[in-house]
């Protein structure tokens, strides 16, 4: 009885971990992304702007902050969206 309860807990844990992993990969997969190699090629262009939209720990815990990126709050989109020319390419750097 004791062994089957432990096995059940282990099974639940493994299932939960795999489910979470697949979900987070799946959610990320739906977004249009640009690879760092692709970004490196275009980031020096005048029409390309990098916006760091990470907030809270998503930003503070990260070691990687792109030099020259504008840090903007995604919740205040209406405030900053008109700041940038419409024909520019905006690359959003998120968590």
């Amino acid at each position, binding site marked *: 009885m004791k062994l089957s309860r432990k096995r059940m*807990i282990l099974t639940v844990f493994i299932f939960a971990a795999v489910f979470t992993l697949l979900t987070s990969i799946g959610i990320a997969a739906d977004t249009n992304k640009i690879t760092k190699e692709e970004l490196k090629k275009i980031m020096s262009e005048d029409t390309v702007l990098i916006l760091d939209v990470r907030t*809270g720990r998503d930003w503070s815990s990260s070691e990687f902050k792109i030099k020259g990126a504008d840090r903007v709050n995604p919740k205040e989109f209406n405030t900053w969206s008109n700041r940038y020319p419409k024909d520019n390419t905006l690359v959003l750097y998120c968590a």
Partner: protein
Amino acid sequence: MGKQVIKQKANIDSLLVFVFAIGIMISSDTLVLLGNFFGKTGNAGFFLIILSAVIYLALLSQYKQLFIFFPVLSSDIEILKSVFGTLPALFPFFVKMIAIVFLSTGLLVSSGFVFNEVFIYWFPNFGFAFIMLGLLLSLQFLPNKAVLYLQIGFAGIPILGFLILIIAGIIQTDQLAHFKPWDMDTSINSMGFNTYFLPLLFFIGFDLGFTICNKSDQKYPGKYNVLFATVIFMCILFVLWGYVSLKYVPAEKLINTSIPHMIAAKNILGDPGRFIMGVIVISGSLAAVHALFTIISKQSSLLLKIARLPENIKVAKILIIFLALIIAGMMAGGMAGEEELETFIRASLILWLISYAMMSLSHMIIRINLFLKNQK
């Protein structure tokens, strides 16, 4: 043979007290505060940290005397119940519940980022945070001894990592030193009122070591010596880490960065330094959250005893699962991306300081009552 066994048991108890007491002190949140603090204060920071350690040693003396007044009691909850009544006695417990929810969310998410950026870049950071949470929850279902002994690894690894970085930082002489002790002219007036009190947050959590060994003084009189030594050890560690941080990172950078510990580690030992600090951050998070889960589990059983309800281990486990679900919900709901999380974490630490103040107040009340009784 009997004496040897008793001595061995005492040594293990002492080690457990130490590793649980330092659980929160070695977390990445403390490292961030420490780095920013030393950037702001320079050599004045060494003095403020030592002063803070002295305050905690005085607090520990009060704890020790309280348990002399109540020799059969073995927990802060029981002491507070004797002095203030049942409801105020629950305050330290609820503070820990609040802390575990917010602090764990922050620490686990930070660890996820570190794992992704330092070790395996393609592994989703939140996936790692959830795996850590699931692991920590599962560990609570292991036998009691395993739960306790795991903390030795979780806390021991960061300590070892720190010692490696500190020794490397001190003995390397070919690095351009940004800071020479005693050269920095830091005006205390420019520091800001809050800065003076920041070091009080660095030693929070010592009572987790106190609680883990809930034997009364009669059965384990040595635990205070261990806790005194723990505070002194961590004070020395913080001072040395502050010294090497200032030696390798300009003060302005330490103030303005959100990852002072990572920058210092990288500047000390390059990429190996980053890896070591990555291990420190992840293991430190495991130590902090595991300590909190274990103590809450233990104290919930104690609360049942105080309420004269039959002890039921299932209640503790259900509570832990419930807390883990809240943490999972907060991570999934994007709480880590909210600026308010830092406010809640800081608030929970301040409430924790208030719970220490309650114990200090208990000590004063009892001393005054004894004095008045003697006068009669």
